[in-house]
């Protein structure tokens, strides 16, 4: 056997034990369709790397877990100067952004583009995150502001908790605010 040019067995280091203890906390404070995704994509990626992940839904981000609203997040080009026409460098004219129907059209287009990438809609994405072991927490103040209770939220939201409780639960975690 010609072993001279053969390297010793190379096996990926999945660092199963090294990853233990790493925690990620993601605060989702936005309820626009486009701003719902960054937290979900990061949470999903972190879980896939074996990182304990907690999401805290607060203010407008509360809509992401409110069953009557979570299917209906909207995307508007209004106030978003970075918005381009799809696939082009031209900007979407801000003067047109507030016109009736524009938000609906932009939402429809964004949902279509996201679906084409094989990325799930927000409720479905949260299903996947929970299946992967992610933890969902709802903000007490947001619940009170919206006059909502746990009955109004996804069943897999673990609890409505105060900001202090969340800080306590995520002791030692890396934190992302969106």
């Amino acid at each position, binding site marked *: 056997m010609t072993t001279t*040019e053969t390297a010793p*067995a190379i*096996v990926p*280091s999945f660092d199963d034990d090294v990853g233990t203890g790493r925690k990620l906390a993601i605060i989702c404070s936005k309820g626009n369709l486009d701003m719902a995704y960054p937290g979900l*994509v990061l949470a999903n990626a972190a879980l896939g790397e*074996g990182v304990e992940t907690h999401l805290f839904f607060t203010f407008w981000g509360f809509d992401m877990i409110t069953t009557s609203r979570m299917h209906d997040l909207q995307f508007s080009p209004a106030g978003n100067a970075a918005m381009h026409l799809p696939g082009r460098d031209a900007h979407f004219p801000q003067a047109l952004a507030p016109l009736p129907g524009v938000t609906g059209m932009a939402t429809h287009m964004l949902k279509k583009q996201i679906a084409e990438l094989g990325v799930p809609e927000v409720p479905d994405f949260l299903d*996947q995150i929970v299946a*992967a072991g992610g933890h969902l927490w709802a903000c007490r103040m947001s619940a009170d502001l919206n006059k909502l209770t746990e009955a109004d939220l996804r069943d897999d939201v673990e609890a409505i908790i105060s900001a202090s409780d969340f800080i306590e639960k995520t002791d030692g975690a890396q934190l992302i605010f969106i």
Partner: protein
Amino acid sequence: MPITELDGHRIHVDDEGFLTEYAEWDDDLAAVLARQIGIDLTDEHWKVIRFLRQDFAEKGETATTRRVQTVGGVPVKEQFALFPKKPGKKMAYVAGLPKPHGCV
């Protein structure tokens, strides 16, 4: 690309140890690769591996955990049970494919 030897199989791998030659993989090697990362293959594992191999042959890229659920029919929760902690990478490794590149 280094050539490495695992249990009598001479294989081309990348720097991390993922196979780089689709054709060098076979069922026997899959069991060897799985043992390297502490997994004994069951029928459930094989369902995932067969899907990944076939999907790669058709699409030219490694399926993500999302795709293994929606197209391959194996729920994400089960993938985590079968390939603990890092299912995306571990499934790809055992199936002799590159790491998945998709974000979701």
